[in-house]
């Protein structure tokens, strides 16, 4: 498109032409502050860190010793970093389907309520107000505290079960139960809201038609009407959950402080770059690897699942 007034696609009355002429300046006044910030605080850091990743940069961010791909080799052969990717994979494999199922289940229940609907919706949504730090604190200090007066140990004690060291002992890995439940509690209500909105948009005509066709209410209508109608939302929820799991940091950092197990990528990166070594070169290489991985995931999901498709269905 050119800025010459005689473009055939746009109707060029004198008033719009005038608007277009003055609009370049307006455009920059509106978008300028944001774009400058975006370049300075998003593009430059990523570029800088790509540059740093090829240097030996310990305790400094203006290094001069070029070492090629050594930082990448270091990270990819480093058992801790690759192990953190495994931790993420395990975590995602559990948390994504479980949160999906629970939030959908809650939405189906709340959707069917005829009175006190708003109350129950609020109750399930309320944990979203908590931060991961606050929730981790409750989980670590009270619910899954490894000592006798921890809530779970108290309840188990009523049935004569010995105290369990939920977080302090990786064998058996009870810490996964703690990690998963804390995120489940915090997030389920958020995704329930998304499912509730989607449930409200299903035309009731579909259920009437299904009833006429002899589908029994319950599993049959759920399987053949509700679930397909929620496809777009389900896809979106799964992707959101996946991206959120990839960025998991707060609860791992707080619940498993001072332990060597259960470190997802961001926690590992935190200790690499901001721990005792302050190895910004290796930390940057790790950040670049993680960035490339998430870009790949985003592009793949766009290709295979397609937000465009989802929007048509809605």
């Amino acid at each position, binding site marked *: 498109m050119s800025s010459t007034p005689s473009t055939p696609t746009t109707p060029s009355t004198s008033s719009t032409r005038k608007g277009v002429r003055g609009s370049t300046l307006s455009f920059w006044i509106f978008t300028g502050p944001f774009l400058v910030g975006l370049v300075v605080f998003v593009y430059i850091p990523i570029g800088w860190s790509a540059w740093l990743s090829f240097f030996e940069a310990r305790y400094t961010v203006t290094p001069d010793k070029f070492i090629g791909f050594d930082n990448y080799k270091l990270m990819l052969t480093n058992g801790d970093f690759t192990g953190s990717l495994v931790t993420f994979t395990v975590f995602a494999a559990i948390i994504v389907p479980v949160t999906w199922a629970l939030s959908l289940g809650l939405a189906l229940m709340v959707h069917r309520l005829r009175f006190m609907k708003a109350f129950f919706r609020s109750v399930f*949504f309320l944990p979203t107000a908590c931060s991961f730090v606050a929730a981790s604190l409750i989980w670590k200090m009270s619910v899954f505290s490894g000592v006798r007066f921890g809530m779970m140990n108290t309840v188990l004690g009523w049935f004569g079960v010995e105290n369990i060291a939920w977080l302090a002992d990786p064998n058996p890995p009870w810490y996964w139960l703690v990690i998963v439940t804390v995120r489940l509690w915090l997030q389920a209500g958020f995704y329930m809201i998304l499912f509730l909105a989607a449930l409200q948009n299903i035309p009731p005509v579909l259920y009437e038609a299904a009833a006429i066709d002899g589908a029994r209410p319950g599993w049959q209508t759920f399987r053949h009407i509700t679930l397909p109608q929620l496809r777009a939302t389900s896809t979106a929820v799964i992707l*959101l959950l996946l991206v959120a799991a990839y960025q998991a940091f707060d609860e791992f950092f707080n619940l498993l402080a001072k332990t060597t197990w259960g470190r997802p990528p961001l926690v590992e990166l935190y200790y690499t770059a901001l721990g005792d070594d302050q190895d910004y070169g290796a930390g940057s290489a790790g950040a670049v690897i993680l960035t490339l991985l*998430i870009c790949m995931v985003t592009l793949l999901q766009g290709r295979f699942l397609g937000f465009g498709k989802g929007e048509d269905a809605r």
Partner: protein
Amino acid sequence: MTTVVPTRRRGRRGVLGSAGLYFATAVCALLFLVPFYLIVRNALSTDAEITGENWQWFPSTVQWGNVTELFDDPTVPFGRSLGNSAVVGILHTVGTLLVCSLAGYGLARIPYRHANKIFYAVLVTLMVPAAVTFVPSFVLVSSLGWVSSMQGLIVPGLFSGFTCFLFRQYFLGFPKELEEAARVDGLGYWGAYWRIVVPNSLNFFAAIATITFISGWNAFLWPLVIGQDQEAWTVQVALSSYMTNQTVNFHLIFMATAVSILPLVLVFLFLQRWLVQGVAQTGIKG
């Protein structure tokens, strides 16, 4: 008319089914409320009651003194961190809304030759969550000398590609006629934006503001990285420090948790309408 269909089938089974439904929902709701109960119970008990031999459901006397003890505790500057969080939360919200809504409007409504290319440059940043690039961001912010400072906590977070994208989508759907009327009255883009577009979009702004404030208040990774001095701690960093402290004062820790959650619970109770809207907006497009 449409509501008749499900109710018609309700016989005795329907009544039983709906009792079961309410029972199941109530059990789930109780489970969801347990952590809140624990916060309140522990915050208002003494340590002896919390760690006692037998489980105590409620403190024998409510310890309101825990509140003042929390703010007088010299080891963790809790009051200061609460103030920091309030400043950060408010400036983060106002700044993000201002910068991102202007950009969103520019991208949606003001014709410019390269607008599409610029929009793609914004979209690309959506692929990379800010948390993933915290090391590079820290490198930049530290070389600006912004570690342990308010601007270091606030400014890097203002330029959210996602929020800009949400505003652009919203403004694309804003009725053009209103703006054209403003144009006829002699207002430029700037005047039309502030006098017509913003006043007619307050619902949307409120929804995004609520979501932005909550995420700012609850943010942890970036404040942890930047807040190297106690002076610059936000409330989340202070909370986290309790968990690694040598001495454990259960009643103080839980009082701190309660105080840190209280503002957001109030937001939830009073702004829930916008919050639900905001979640629906941000979630679906996510």
